[in-house]
């Protein structure tokens, strides 16, 4: 980089034969800048996809691969998204990271992957979520737990 500056000084002193090499070096620098920003931007897009897939809290092994500025970008993006979702429908809020697929049926078969204790559904019945137990539950109740990894949708 500093050689470029040096050459620029030479140019202003009137040594015209260095101009092509200056131009070439400038093009190389621009190309390097483009490659770097493209790489960094692509990483950002992947991190953004993580927010939509995993939710607000990233798993530790993913966070390990991110640098401090990326973590900051992620938390800022989370905040922007959250305030946008809160503002929908005149202050009511709508979580648009839910409902990713069109609803096929009202109740779904789920298998419990971890112990989660007791779970109450709308009509008052309480279900005990033990590991490996299977239940037939309303879809909208399970969606949260499926994303957290507590329940697993069983498709027969």
């Amino acid at each position: 980089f500093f050689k470029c500056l040096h050459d620029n000084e030479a140019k202003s002193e009137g040594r015209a034969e260095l101009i092509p090499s200056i131009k070439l070096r400038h093009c190389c620098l621009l190309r390097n800048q483009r490659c770097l920003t493209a790489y960094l931007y692509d990483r950002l897009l992947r991190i953004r996809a993580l927010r939509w897939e995993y939710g607000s809290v990233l798993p530790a092994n993913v966070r390990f691969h991110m640098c401090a500025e990326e973590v900051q970008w992620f938390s800022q993006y989370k905040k922007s998204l959250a305030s946008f979702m809160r503002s929908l429908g005149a202050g009511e809020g709508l979580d648009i990271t839910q409902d990713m697929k069109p609803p096929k049926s009202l109740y779904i078969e789920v298998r419990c992957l971890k112990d989660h204790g007791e779970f109450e559904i709308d009509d008052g019945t309480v279900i005990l979520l033990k590991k490996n137990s299977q239940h037939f539950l309303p879809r909208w109740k399970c969606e949260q737990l499926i994303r957290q990894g507590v329940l697993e949708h069983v498709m027969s």
Partner: protein
Amino acid sequence: MSDALSDDGSDINQDESQEDVMTPAELIAKLEEAWLNEKFSPELLENRSEVVECVMEQLTHMEANLQRVKKGDAKASIHRMEIDRIRFMLSSYLRSRLQKIEKFFPHVLEREKSRGEGDPSLLSPEEFAFAKEYYANTETYLKAVALKRMPPNLQTVDMLKAVPEPCLDSFVFLRVKERQENILVEPETDDQREYVVDLEEGSQHLMRYRTIAPLVSSGAVQLI
């Protein structure tokens, strides 16, 4: 199913003093149109925040009604399905708008800044805030990680040039709702022959988005 829906909804709209009193069925049809158009269009379309707000109000009313109905399980589950479907449509609509905003953020902000006073707005105020925050966030990140370590003349990136523009020449399927005459379809060849078509009502076509873009925003065609 929409009969059951309008039964519950008709008492809401009766003493509502809004400019356009629509039945819930019409409202959902409008949402579906907006959703499909937004999904299949390559660029961000006009903002339909009044539809979004009305639908959200509708959803809360429906959920409240559902809480009241304890027994009569069959009707309740049908309503519940309806609520789920509407919520999915609304979420999908908002998601595709947000994705387009993020993908084309400098161009979207530029368009919003340069639109005239009377022109309809492209972004809702919340979307505009989101877009600005996204821009600032990304710029801060790039500066902090790479650009500040570069020589002084390379420390900025022109976002308008760096981020690709939406491809308006992509082909889209459309259905014609109102009859249109003399739509100019310019050929790609060098000889400037004008190729003009008439669009019959109810017909379906596959055309370049650029030629029918104004028709989409006026509602004369529906993207499918």
